[in-house]
């Protein structure tokens, strides 16, 4: 059901009315939306808010890998941003690294896909990959521990 009652043209009309009046803002709250139109310097802003409106919340699946503590003596390789973690450059290809591999700070150890962009994950420190914690193709949060590195 259409439950947004005002079109962009309506907002333009409201601005025109306000502009010709002495008022600087209008704040309309209904059960379905809140609209604030306010003077801002020379111009105007419109702010819509539907967060109080009656729409069923959709539960997102919880990301598999979360923030966790890192055992003493080991270094964590963390996800630089939220997204989907991949161990290999493309499906079927060899993984970037396996447990037991030696890495330098610049070694690419995986990819995190966010918003359709492939972001390389660098080891960040030299060492030996002692454990790979994130599953291939699993959703990861920003800062999630993907791997542990042991001193070389």
């Amino acid at each position, binding site marked *: *059901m*259409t*439950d*947004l009652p005002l*079109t*962009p043209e309506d*907002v*333009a009309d409201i*601005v*025109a009315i306000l*502009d010709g009046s002495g008022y600087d803002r209008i704040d309309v709250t209904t059960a379905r939306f809140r609209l*604030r*139109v*306010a003077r*801002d*310097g*020379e*111009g*105007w*802003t*419109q*702010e*819509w*808010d*539907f*967060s109080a*409106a009656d*729409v*069923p*919340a*959709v539960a*997102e*699946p919880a990301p598999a890998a979360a923030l966790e503590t890192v055992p003493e003596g080991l270094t964590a390789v963390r996800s*630089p*941003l*939220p*997204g*989907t973690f991949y161990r290999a*450059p*493309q*499906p079927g290809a060899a993984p970037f690294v396996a447990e037991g591999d030696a890495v330098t700070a610049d070694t690419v150890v995986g*990819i995190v*896909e*966010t*918003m*359709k*962009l*492939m*972001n*390389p994950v660098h080891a960040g420190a030299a060492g030996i990959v002692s454990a790979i914690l994130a599953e291939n193709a699993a959703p990861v949060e920003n800062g999630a521990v993907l791997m542990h590195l042991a001193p070389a």
Partner: protein
Amino acid sequence: MSLPRIRRLFIANRGEIALRIIRTAQKMGITAILGVSEADRASLPARLADETVVIGPAPSVHSYLSIPAVIAAAQAARADAVHPGYGFLSENAAFARAVGDAGMIFVGPDVASLEAMGDKLMARRVSAAAGLPVVPGGEAEDTDAARRVAETTGYPLLLKAVSGGGGRGMKRVDRPEDLDSQIAMAMAEAEAAFGDPRLYVERFIARGRHVEVQILGDGQRAIHLGTRDCSIQRRFQKLVEEAPAPNIPVDKHQAILDAAVRLATHLRYRGAGTVEFLVDAERFDFYFLEMNARIQVEHPVTEAVTGIDLIEQQLLIADGQPLGIPQEMVRIAGHAIEVRINAEDWRRDFRPSPGTATVAAWPAGPGIRVDSHIASGGVVPPHYDSLMGKLIVSAATRGEAVARLAGALDGLRIEGLPSTADLHRAIAADPRFVAGGVDTRFFEGMADG
């Protein structure tokens, strides 16, 4: 007004373009049915649509990119037609065919045009046959083939997804030793975004402007709706677009328009499309880049200077009606500029920043248009692209439009996640942009770029 054939329109997209299509459909008396992923059930377009259907889980491969899921949802909703928006399946010939096979109208060009323009190699051949100049390059299915083509083009070169568009999967390579790693990344992105890893390798022309022509065709006749300049890009993602393209000599400007119409006529093109050119920033020689057989993100600047609703035209043409606008009726009045407000932390290498916009206060007033699906409290999911909305300003002259843009950006307030809003403030104040006619290196020249 109602259309004889299209009464129930299924929108196979999300975000601001879904909202944009819903608005025109409702204005035309068409029932707007939106297919949403699980992540978009509470989105603004879902609230505004007349009906919504869940097409699948959040990842786009299982929802917005899944041909069987979209077709099944559209059929279940008893749609007469499917509008694909941009991105996702919009230029996928197999999808267009599947829509037709299911007895529905695809709001877009014929399958033959999609095939001709969707494959960059064939697009080059066809446009050369239509008499348009092209840039040296060739297709590569793997690293070895890419190396061979690179030897013919030289460096710097560009890697593009053969099935791509909109800059996705495009990489610039400056040195031969970087080629292999860039190819692997470009192929992975092409596969993820388009389901096709093939690449196109092309010579990179450094001092170029990106100028494109909006086309409408009904299969018999084609017209242009003027030029757009999209030279302000970062890594081939457009940041700012304007209409018409400024500071191009009148005869060269006309030659670009004529070339675009020639290609659309050659294709017997049906629908809205965009012919993109690389224009030499000093000599104004131009080369065909590609044709986007769909609505573009930046279509509102053309709407602002022509007064023509492009989505309405798409629907009229898809319904089978002849073009109602003769070329001489298209008048370009004034100047319009669009900036893309993305959920990206531009100070940290444009890192994608999904999350919740706790405050989204957009500009309003005369000469200002906002196309956005993000209101205060709106969610930008990590599964899709980072576009939060577009701010479009128009005025009688380019100078006034630039001033209006600066004023509107001053009022724009996005809180809760980083956005490109203040990047655009810097662009609007940049003397090169204020002067107009910058080339595609503009962004590299910005401080802290």
